[in-house]
């Protein structure tokens, strides 16, 4: 699979050439350059507006991001943000089921944490990385296995868009206690 490289400024390169048609590259494997942050993805969305059509919440998230400061949008609660894949298998009771989710979490020394209680103004400049696949088997005992994996451009955008759909709302109601 050909590798797409996402640069810090949100540009995409394939075989060292800048790409113009982003739709044809959605299935390509993504590699992140050093220094990529969540803000890099917003630069990507504005450089390639076609990708905004992949999720109904992306346009609103871009407006929210545009309203944030140009730099220093970080939180001390996390060391970085990580996109990872979770494969879940459920056996009994009921019909056996397998689901795959692409999720973004905030990482610190206590583990992975949800982002919905953090506003974009504290996340935009956090370092961003691509993580592993967490394979979870739900049964009498839950077992899990972490494997290395790759992500396509579509999965990365969809995973981020999914997470961003939980952003927004009244700051008063979003205050963490």
């Amino acid at each position, binding site marked *: 699979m050909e590798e797409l490289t996402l640069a810090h400024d949100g540009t995409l390169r394939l075989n060292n050439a800048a790409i113009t048609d982003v739709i044809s590259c959605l299935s390509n494997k993504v590699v992140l350059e050093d220094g990529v942050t969540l803000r890099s993805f917003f630069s990507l969305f504005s450089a390639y507006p076609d990708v905004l059509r992949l999720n109904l919440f992306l346009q609103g998230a871009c407006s929210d991001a545009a309203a944030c400061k140009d730099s220093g949008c970080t939180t001390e609660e996390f060391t970085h943000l990580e996109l990872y894949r979770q494969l879940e298998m459920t056996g009994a009771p009921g019909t056996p089921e397998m689901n795959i989710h692409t999720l973004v979490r905030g990482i610190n020394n206590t583990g992975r944490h*949800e982002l*919905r209680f953090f506003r974009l103004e504290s996340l935009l400049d956090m370092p961003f990385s691509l993580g592993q696949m967490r394979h979870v088997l739900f049964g009498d005992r839950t077992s899990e296995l972490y494997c290395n994996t790759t992500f396509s451009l579509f999965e990365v955008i969809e995973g981020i868009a999914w997470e961003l759909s939980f952003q*927004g*709302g009244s700051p*008063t*109601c*979003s205050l963490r*206690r």
Partner: protein
Amino acid sequence: MFKKILFATSASPACDNAAKVSFDLAQKNDAKLYTLHVLGVPSRGFSTTVTDLRSGEEETVDADYRDWVMEELTTTYAAQLADYEKTALELAVGVPATEILRFARKEGVDLIVMGANTRDDDPESARSRSIVGRTMEKVARLAKCPVLIVNRPCTTCWKLFSNIVYCTDFSPAADNAFEFARTTAEEIGAKLNIFHAFDMTSSKMGLFPSQSDIERQLESAQKKIDERYVSKLKDYDNYDVEIWEGTPYVEILKFAREKQADLIIMAHHTAEVPAEDAELGSTIEQVVVRSACPVASVSRA
């Protein structure tokens, strides 16, 4: 407004936000608050052991175990219990949804308050799946009273509600939900935002509505809102009507965020099927998991 409120809790941190709203609400209404924790599902038949919902371990339901869980509950909600005395802590054994519904019916509660799901790694987790937890779904479907779903921290809830968003698709179920929205807004003195999102995603024979079709639909929706809802508000003038077009759940969320809504009130389902047979509508499901404020699901008047 409410005389008896049931707060159904797994006593896990996921229910903390719902706890805050429950106690606030009970205090504001001077209502009796039942805090119900279902110990777990009996392992088999008439077994006396249960699978503890918090630890996942098998436990024998005897006096010691009950006392231990009751003590845990008291410790978990110590701060709230100290503030409000009209609270009863209750334990039950069984399938959580069934026991919650049974208790609500027995005590004739006016409102059930719950979190949307229990934990992030739960196979039924709302967050990971975009659907709400199985217990919440079943309770919302079968409860005779409104169910308030609290999925986020909320610092202002109920005592300071100022913006209620009521969403309608003009189904009979939505009309029932309006009665709840109207009385709530009037009692609290909150602004009532009556909102309808014209569904642009549904096509007939592959044809999507033209601009003139959309405008006709919006006009018709305005007329329906005037007839069905505004006419019932009588002297209450603290309301606003808005009609947007798009994907309903996205528009509802955008509207609620723009208005800084404190509470969203929706019908539990919209299709014309008996409440007992209706799945939780996909629109309310999506709104529940993404909303920053509590969502009230109303299945009956």
